[in-house]
């Protein structure tokens, strides 16, 4: 589905990723973990095309997308929930889900389906995105990415700043994505969330993948947790 091969990425003048390789297979939830500043968000930005890789290769559904502009990568079927949610203050909730909507025959994520999934948003359709609570903004960021009916969803720290209740709601969403077979690449700091939902985990340190395992293995590996996650 998604193959990232030995990518080197600069952010401004400094190199952030030093040869990262990972893959996401159909139907999988794959997590990327690591301390702050190890390049997790840069990895997501490179995949969606906002900070293109200087060297290496990114392939999605078999097509080389390394140097494609972001909007083309998105239209090939990658959904993106940026860190900090970044909803549009000038757009209403309804408009958020109109500007990105892209329905294909048989595609599961329609406007109506979103409202079923996030009834809170349905009550606030004409409100500005910036007037929503943090949890609602997260749901909106998920909704606007999903109505494009992506074949892969990138989630960059979706639980950041959420109440435990909202984290559980988000977990439900990841569960629904799993059920529909939509793969997810998840950057996450909350170990419990990753242990519960991920199928595989990559651990990043100083711009490189230093460990790759199943969540169950990570749960018991106190050395790795202490060294790379600070747990």
């Amino acid at each position, binding site marked *: 589905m998604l193959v990232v091969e030995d990518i080197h990425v600069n952010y401004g003048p400094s190199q952030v990723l030093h040869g990262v390789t990972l893959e996401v297979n159909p139907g999988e939830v794959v997590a990327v973990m690591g301390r702050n500043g190890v390049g997790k968000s840069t990895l997501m930005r490179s995949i969606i095309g906002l900070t293109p890789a200087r060297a290496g290769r990114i392939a999605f559904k078999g097509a080389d997308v390394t140097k494609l502009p972001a909007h083309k990568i*998105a239209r090939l079927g990658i959904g993106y929930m940026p860190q900090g949610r970044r909803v549009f203050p000038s757009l209403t909730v309804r408009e958020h889900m109109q500007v990105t909507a892209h329905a294909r025959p048989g595609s599961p994520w329609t406007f109506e389906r979103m409202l079923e999934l996030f009834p809170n948003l349905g009550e606030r359709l004409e409100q500005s995105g910036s007037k929503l609570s943090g949890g609602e903004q997260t749901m909106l960021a998920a909704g606007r990415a999903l109505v494009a009916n992506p074949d892969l969803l990138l989630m960059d720290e979706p639980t950041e700043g959420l109440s435990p209740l909202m984290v559980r709601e988000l977990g439900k969403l990841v569960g629904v994505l799993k059920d529909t077979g939509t793969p997810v690449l998840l950057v996450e700091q909350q170990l419990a969330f990753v242990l519960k939902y991920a199928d595989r985990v990559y651990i990043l340190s100083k711009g490189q993948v230093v460990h790759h395992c199943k969540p169950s293995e990570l749960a018991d590996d106190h050395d790795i947790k202490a060294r790379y996650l600070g747990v």
Partner: protein
Amino acid sequence: MIWIIHTLNGVSLGMLLFLLAAGLSLIYGLMKILNLTHGSYYLVGAYIGSTVIEKTGSFALALIVAPLAVALLGVAMERFFLRRFHLDELPQTLLTFGFLFIIADLCLWIWGGDAILLPKPALFSTSIAIGGNFYPTYRLLLIVVGFAVAGVLWWFQEHTRIGAMLRAGVDDAETARALGIDVSLLFTVVFAVGAFLAALGGVLGGPIIGASPGADFDVMLLAFVVVIVGGLGSLRGALVGGLLVGLLDNFGKIFFPEFALFTIFVPMAIILSFRPTGLFGRA
């Protein structure tokens, strides 16, 4: 009753300023380009309009041909030049500054150095009585057209999908791109619309302000004041700012004729000291 006349003068000038500032504001809001060529769009629009009227005698045709021609000029500038320096402010600004001089010289070469005043369309070269004074219907036409254009732009921005994409791009171009919105296509559309409106202002303002070498600078300066007062990236700001500057300019010239530009720039400074992003601008 003379105040009605002065107010109408101010409002009609304000509408011309709105036509100029709307494009300037949208281009800056979406692309962060300070387009110093914007006054040139006005001038070229007025000149092409004068040629069309001279050859065909039709003001209505000038209102269509000149803005379309200038919109093409704007698209060419954006596609072939500005695009190479995306978000690189200094090269972009220098580039538009260069175009300002190139276009000014081309205009001098083609249309000469004499100031010209476009003829008013026959239908609107009359006057009507307003409160005991005679007032030119052409200026009333300007007011109507200005509000109509504002209405169409507002509808487009608030009630169409492309308008919503445009707002998303102004809010956060990066996130918009990552969600599959072709922001670079929006750039071209906005440049075309901005140049179109400025040239429309050139033809409509032709019978009042006219066209002459240097008008590009003068007009650009006023448009900048409007955009700064109203707030960058905001259509409402361009409309309110345009009306405010139009009225200030008009009444300033009546009360303090010796301080012509003073009456525009002092209020601008005052507004900026209380609202640094302009009346409707966002930080």
